[in-house]
Structures are given as structure tokens and as C-alpha cells.
């Protein structure tokens, strides 16, 4: 059964509405690149300033958990992309299933991250809280971990928002709010999820792989 797409009053037709939504979302994603970008800039400058400190500090991160988390997030992008694809093909249950998988992987990511934070805490690596590291490069190591917590903190906040968004989309999809002709919110939600994944893709080598050899 064909259901008409609801077109907001400012748009001429569904096509214009779709194109506007897509462009608006991508422009928003560009703002996110620059938002995190200020942190990547701070990281770059700080690392150039204190390369030895960053090397030491990076070795203190938990590479196992970090790498597992990267795999978890990359997989969640796969499930999200499949969720969007299923929605486009009208496969409602499959789509909701993939969205739930995405959420589960997102929660797993946050759980692993939380574990890491706990381990950092017990390892006296939390600036302003209990940071205590030996050696002449301690200040630089603390700077690294300051950036580590700020960058992964903002990333985790975005993950949390993403989980809420995908959760809402799953509920809406379950209630048959979407059709193959109208599933823009799912598509846009997917874009957001993938962007948060891309941020992590860059965070991972910068935080975990600086000097492992």
C-alpha cells in the first residue's frame, strides 16, 4: 500500500524536502568535524611540542581495549548501514533488528570505554583527580591524558546521543512510521552514527598507537 510522504509546508515536494534534509545533515556533519577539529589541532600542536611525553603516555593506554573498541565501532557502522538499507527495501523488522544490534554494539563500546576509564583511574592517570606519573616527562604525559579524556569524553557523549537517536528511530520504525519512500530520519541518524565512528577512526591511532614499537 502506497502511503503519501508528508511534505512540510515550506517545501515544493518530497524530493526537495529530501534533498534539503540531506544537505542540512551534511553541513551539520561538517560542523562536527570542526568541533572535534579544535581538539585534533590541540593534540597535534601538543604532540609536536612534547613528542617523547606523548610516546610514553600513549604506551600507558590500554591497546587491547582500544583496539577491541575500534572493531566494535566499525561493526556497529556495518549494522547501521544495513539497518538503513533494510528500511529502504521496506524490511521493517530486519531494519529494527540491525538498529538494535547497533545500539548493543554502542553500549558495548561505552562499557569498554568505562572499563578503560576505571583502569586509568586505578593507574593514576586522571589529570586533576589523581594523576601521578614518574619521570621527567610527567607534565607532558598529563597533557596527553588531559586531551585523551577530553577527546574520548566528547566522543562518548556523541555515542550516547547516537544511541538515544538510534533507539528512538528503532521505536519509530517498529511503529511503522517509515516507508521505503520516507525513511529520511533513519538515513540521517545513520549519517550521524557513521560520523561518530569516523571521529573514533582518527582518535584511535593518535591515542593508542603513538609509540608501540
Amino acid at each position, binding site marked *: 500500500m502506497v502511503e503519501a510522504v508528508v511534505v512540510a509546508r515550506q517545501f515544493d515536494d518530497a524530493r526537495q524536502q529530501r534533498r534539503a534534509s540531506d544537505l542540512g545533515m551534511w553541513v551539520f556533519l*561538517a560542523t562536527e568535524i570542526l568541533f572535534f577539529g579544535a581538539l585534533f*589541532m590541540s593534540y597535534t*600542536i601538543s604532540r609536536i611540542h612534547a613528542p617523547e611525553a606523548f610516546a610514553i603516555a600513549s604506551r600507558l593506554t590500554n591497546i587491547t581495549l582500544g583496539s577491541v573498541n575500534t572493531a566494535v565501532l566499525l561493526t556497529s557502522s556495518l549494522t547501521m548501514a544495513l539497518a538503513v538499507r533494510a528500511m529502504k527495501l521496506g524490511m521493517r523488522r530486519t531494519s529494527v533488528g540491525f538498529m538494535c544490534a547497533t545500539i548493543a554494539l554502542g553500549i558495548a563500546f561505552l562499557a569498554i570505554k568505562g572499563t578503560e576509564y576505571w583502569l586509568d583511574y586505578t593507574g593514576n592517570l586522571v589529570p586533576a583527580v589523581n594523576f601521578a606519573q614518574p619521570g621527567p616527562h610527567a607534565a607532558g604525559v598529563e597533557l596527553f591524558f588531559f586531551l585523551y579524556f577530553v577527546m574520548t569524553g566528547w566522543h562518548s557523549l556523541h555515542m550516547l546521543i547516537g544511541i538515544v537517536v538510534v533507539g528512538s528511530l528503532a521505536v519509530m520504525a517498529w511503529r511503522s512510521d517509515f516507508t521505503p519512500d520516507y525513511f529520511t530520519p533513519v538515513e540521517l541518524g545513520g549519517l550521524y552514527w*557513521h560520523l561518530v565512528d569516523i571521529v573514533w577512526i582518527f582518535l584511535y*591511532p593518535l591515542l593508542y*598507537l603513538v*609509540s608501540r614499537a
Partner: protein
Amino acid sequence: MIAHPVPRVRTYVLVWVALICLLLLTLGSAYMNLGRLNAGINLAIAAAKAWLVAFFFMHLRSSHYMLRIAAATGFFWLAILIGLSLTDFAVRY
């Protein structure tokens, strides 16, 4: 409606396989002492992963060119921020 064929599940799964391979590559190469090359390799691999996600998962491959410009602009502008600042920091540090 966008009249592009819906990608096959196989495509998405292959992209995921590529991403995991790149993850293993970046992790593995980090344990090889390549000096300054390590950072470059890691960033290049990260860029490749990001490109795969953007191109395939985010459908930039079949998108209106304006969306690709928006995406590229974000990264390019970040490059300006870091690049021009380096005229100061790379000289002073």
C-alpha cells in the same frame, strides 16, 4: 526519490572486512619501528578507513555532488586550521 540501486549486503560486508583489515594493519604496523613513518602510515590508514565509511556506509558514492563538497570542506578547513598554525608552531618548537 533517489533512483540509485540499493547496494547489496555483500558490498557492505566487504567494506567491513576491508575496515577490519585496515585496523589490523594499523595495529600491526604500530609494532614495527618505522620512526616517523609510523605516524604517517597510521594517519593514511585512518584516512582510508574514513573514506570507506563515508563513501560506502554514508552513501557519498551515490550522492549529489554538493554533499561531497560539504564533507570535503569540513576536512579541508580543519587542514587549514592546523596547516597555517604550523607556520608558527613548527618553527617555534
